[in-house]
């Protein structure tokens, strides 16, 4: 199954990835990263299709998408 990797310490918390994931697989952390931001994270709660929409919209270019 495809998966994504978010570089959480670099996340600024805009959450554009959250609203652009068609499967709703990206959630907001409960704790803060080093920036004091509740970073976005890949929840693995459903089936990632590897569409890369999260990476396409990420302004920080901190999301990598892998196929299996």
């Amino acid at each position, binding site marked *: 199954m*495809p998966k994504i990797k978010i570089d959480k310490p*670099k996340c*600024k*918390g*805009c*959450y*554009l990835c*959250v*609203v*652009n994931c068609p499967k709703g697989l990206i959630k907001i952390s409960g704790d803060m990263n080093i920036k004091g*931001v509740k970073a976005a994270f890949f929840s693995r709660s459903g089936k990632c299709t*590897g569409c*890369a*929409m*999260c*990476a*396409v*919209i*990420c*302004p*920080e*270019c901190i*999301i*990598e*998408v*892998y*196929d*299996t």
Partner: protein
Amino acid sequence: MRRLIFSRPKSLRDVEMHYCAGCGHGIVHRLLCEAIDELGIRERTIGVAPVGCAVLAYDYWDFDVTEAAHGRTPAVATGIKRVRPENIVFSYQGDGDLAAIGTAEIIHTANRGENITVIFVNNGVYGMTGGQMAPTTLAGQKTDTTIAGRNLKRDGYPIKILEMLAVLPGVRYAERVSVHSAQETLRAKRAIKKAFKTQVDNIGFSIVEILSMCPIYWGMTAIQAAERIETEVATFYPIGVIKSY
């Protein structure tokens, strides 16, 4: 064995950008780097960075870059391209830079049909200086210098530069896109790539206007800012090809 299907383009340095959360500049930086990499032109690209939020772009782009005085980017790009026609030269400008202080330069560079590419990021405010009204600020939009909203009688009308430029014979390709959603960002990528290809093929002047979010100076979250582009900004500045060949 995992296969990487999306990662940072080679032309975009692996450094953290200074932009605010949800700012569209980071997306646009990446898109133009992807286009440059895919066209295989990194080693002959020369970028001209503007004054404004993108003034530090040379810290992020891994190719030759200079910076220009506010609004003069197209003139600087003209000088470079005329001396080195074999290089790929682009000007990266915001709306204050391109549509206010640099109006003369963009119009005449376009009118001369300079074979350069202009990446025009329109977020409707002066971000770097603290969110003042830009030439592109929408009617009624609140900014640091239009606290009750842009008043058309006092402040004049928002300016549609691309439509103005499109009437010039020197302009060969002009498209307005947006980076407010992943789908629109993919379209923006195609437009930016086509604009560079226009130059590579020696067809002439190309410009892409990118509607972009400035959540901080729009006084909203990034998600709200993206929605505002969809519902308000793109209504006034329609997305689509304005001129092509």
